[in-house]
């Protein structure tokens, strides 16, 4: 039920939070996996991840997928020029 609150200035202010929409990794149907040995560190997967779920700190490291948030769109797999990303069905 709707009561008039005591506070007269309750504001709908949200704070920036990783995973604001939850652990969206759980949405995944397919899981992208970077094959470290094939990876040429071109960073294309990092560049095109719509989720910013691939972490890259420099061009010397193989980028890392954050599976808490990777939604499994497989864009990374598609853009990888050397097919260094494979996909697996989740829960299999």
């Amino acid at each position, binding site marked *: 039920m709707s009561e008039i*609150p005591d506070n*007269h*200035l309750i*504001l709908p*202010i949200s704070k920036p939070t990783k995973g604001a929409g939850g652990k969206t990794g759980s949405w995944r149907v397919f899981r992208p996996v970077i094959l470290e040995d094939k990876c040429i560190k071109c960073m294309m997967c990092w560049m095109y991840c719509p989720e910013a779920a691939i972490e890259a700190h420099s061009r010397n490291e193989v980028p890392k997928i954050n599976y808490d948030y990777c939604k499994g769109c497989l864009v990374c797999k598609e853009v990888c020029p050397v097919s260094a990303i494979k996909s697996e069905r989740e829960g299999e």
Partner: protein
Amino acid sequence: METYDVITGNDAVAWGARLSRVEVIAAYPITPQTTIVEKLAEWVDKGEIDARYIAVESEHSAMSAAMGASAAGARAFTATSSQGFLYMFEMISWAAGARTPVVMAVVNRALGPPWNIWSEHTDALMARDTGWIQFWASNNQEALDSIIQAYRVAEDKKVILPAMVMLGGFVLSHTAMPVRIHDQDKVDQYLPPYSPPHYVLNPKLSEPFAYGNILFPWDYAKVRLSIQRAMENSVDVIKKAAREFQEIFGIWHGDLIKEAYTDNAEMLIFALGAVAEQAEATAELLRKKGYKVGVVKVRVTRPFPKHEIAKLANKVSRIIVIDRDISFGWDGILAGEIKATLHEHNVDTPVTTKIMGIGGDDILPDHIEKAVKEVYNK
């Protein structure tokens, strides 16, 4: 330096905004509001006031720009009328929800179709649910002073809601009469600079945040209903603002209401704005003729002064409400709210509604007198 000049209601509003040191003005022309913003545009252009004028392309944008400016921490002003008021209706509602204490002058004008440019109060009353504080000016001095008071109330840390100040189209907007234009220092003393106690859209002052993304019902209800609490708080704030205004400037326009000739009155006339002052002048005549009538100017319609009205109504045996408005399929809007108030407060004084002055139909003292007598002698 205080001056005393004969100016129109619209110029008085412009002066009110100027003395309030508005920082951003965004407006769009519409008769009979236009001369307000023309005056402000002129002052801005000539450098007489230090404000930014945004010549937007519609009223929806006028309110959007004004509330954007307010959200970014500036004191913002706009003004409109009639169709313009309805065209910005979405943003009127939005500005209250966003808790941006914009002040807007509404020069009341009848709605179309057909086209009509004269006075009627239906426009502003249509927004009575939106969360705006609503002041009604009954003469030009009050128009000027109410703009200043409106900022005081709207920006009060216990309130933080936008406020609109109404004045009758032509009846006040284009009628010149003597007005005291206050000393700027005194106004500054009365109205401190706007310092938002809440969010400000400025990454130099605020940590990143988001305002207004989706809220689930339970959170939403709290946020929205806090507006109702702010409205409740505003009652005392309005009273205090009026009192202190009187202390500093020596002028009293009433607070939520203003009474005239109510002492030992047997009947009360309720009305808004210039119509109320017209009724006051008529009541003076009627008193001379032996009619014990008083007048209650409802100066603020939101928050609705339920207690004040019930108290006065309880003392009389008859009430007439003059509505320069109509809610089709209902009746006079002010009368309806007064009736509801009386029912709520167990006051059974009968209330007669008189719709008058639709579309600028001139309300003559005779009309009021006749209506009053009809009820008085019933």
